[in-house]
């Protein structure tokens, strides 16, 4: 699903954000990417969604070499993945329904598909009853779920989630990761970027730690029943 080979990212400010990163994520995996602020997690995410191209090395997602994508091919690629941002990035003037439908319209879906798909993904994140609410009237947790629904709208093979719990209280954070695990069980590859080690310990799975732009740890760990507030 995701393949990075000898990837280096050097910013014009002089910072080496990623240094010789090699990474392979299989279809259907759930991967936590952890690390301190400034470690290179967001750069990794930007590479996966083709917001950034590496200074050297190659990035493949779904078999596509992202470095060679140009113009509308970038747009087409982004339709095949789902991305959830820490700050949600929803269109505040739109309703919940419109925000999710928008991702489908962008992918040139028919009205019939939109009418069928939007209620389905909204029910998946338990927001069906709030479809007609304006996004700006929702709580942080609800907005995060709208963002997940939007990311799932086009049935992506890969879901990239950036610090989804950053604006949530601990209880909502655990619920949200539980939801992402459910989505993963349905076959979607999930890459979740976080710096909350408690969450990672609780759920377990494949953990990749980044420090100063390099992968320092890449192991499977078991989850625990210890729920830490």
């Amino acid at each position, binding site marked *: 699903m995701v393949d990075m080979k000898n990837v280096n990212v050097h910013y014009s400010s002089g910072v080496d954000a990623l240094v010789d990163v090699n990474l392979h994520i299989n279809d259907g995996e759930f991967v936590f990417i952890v690390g301190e602020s400034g470690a290179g997690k967001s750069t990794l995410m930007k590479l996966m969604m083709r917001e950034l191209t590496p200074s050297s090395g190659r990035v493949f997602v779904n078999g596509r070499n992202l470095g060679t994508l140009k113009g509308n091919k970038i747009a087409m*690629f*982004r339709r095949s993945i789902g991305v959830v941002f820490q700050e949600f990035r929803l269109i505040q003037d739109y309703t919940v329904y419109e925000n999710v439908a928008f991702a489908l319209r962008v992918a040139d879906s028919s009205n019939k598909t939109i009418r069928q798909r939007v209620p389905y993904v909204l029910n998946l994140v338990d927001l069906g009853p709030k479809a007609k609410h304006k996004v700006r009237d929702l709580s942080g947790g609800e907005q995060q779920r709208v963002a997940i629904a939007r990311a799932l709208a086009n049935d992506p093979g890969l879901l990239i989630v950036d610090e989804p719990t950053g604006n949530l209280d601990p209880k909502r954070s655990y619920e949200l990761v539980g939801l992402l695990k459910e989505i993963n069980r349905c076959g979607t590859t999930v890459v979740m970027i976080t710096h909350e080690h408690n969450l990672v310990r609780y759920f377990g799975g494949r953990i990749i730690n980044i420090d100063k732009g390099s992968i320092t740890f890449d192991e499977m760990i078991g989850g625990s029943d210890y729920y830490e507030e």
Partner: protein
Amino acid sequence: MRSNNVTYLIKKGVSSVWKNFIMSFASFSILLVSLLQVSVTVLLILNVNIIMSNIEDTNQVAVFVEDSESESEEQHQKKVEHIREALTNNEDLTDVNYISKEDAAKKWSQAMSGPSADLINMVPGGNPMPETFTVRVKNIENIRATVAAVQNIEGVEQVNAPYDFANSLVNIKKTFSLIVFAMLAVLIIVSIVVVSNTIRTSVFARRNEISIMKYVGATNGFIKLPFFVEGCFVGILAGAASWGLTWFIYNSVYSLFTENVTAWQMLGFSNLIPFENLRLPLLLANCVVGAMLGAAGTVISMNRYLKV
């Protein structure tokens, strides 16, 4: 792109005008002022051209027929007919009029008053007035070449042409055209700069929305379409409003020149173009230029926010 999505984007574009009312109103106002200035300038040009043509039409060239004592009456008549034919066939001339010696003397007497009116009859050797043709040069810029051609007609003794008048008029026309085109160019450039800056402010306020569209996989065309429609719509509204205001201003000025006729008529202002003659072309031009300015301003302003 599917038709349902195109319809959706067009609707979004139109509804954005009301949703972002303050910014739309700012764009509308700037476009309105720009289009109004351009419309008024264009009307000024059209009318000044008409006035110039009216003044141009007053040029009169006098062609004097050679008066030879040795020729018979029949020969003289043939000569006059030959000149008349040559003048009438000359495509650069119009309004060919013949003035006989008698008519010329009569005109002179009428122009004089009192005892001077009889002076013409006291000249030894009879009526001294020459036989004349009066003609008008169609294109005053070519007056010298046209007059030279007339001078070469057999039987023409002399040609009197208003060269100074023609020179002054040609110079005035050239200077006016230069000033007006410079004004128009400056107006259009200033309009584009001001309009695109105003729209840029509007697009800047919505940069977040644009970046979200990019992140979910929207193509540049998909993102631009509603903004393009919005720009066009505001442009058309501004064009229509500018047309209405131009109508009002123009009719006020038109009444001023046409109701108090005497003084203005003398200056050639009597034939100003009535607004009714320009109503539809001007409405169309205002709306089309408005839509183009609005759409171009929006799309140009957007490009920098599409690089995500």
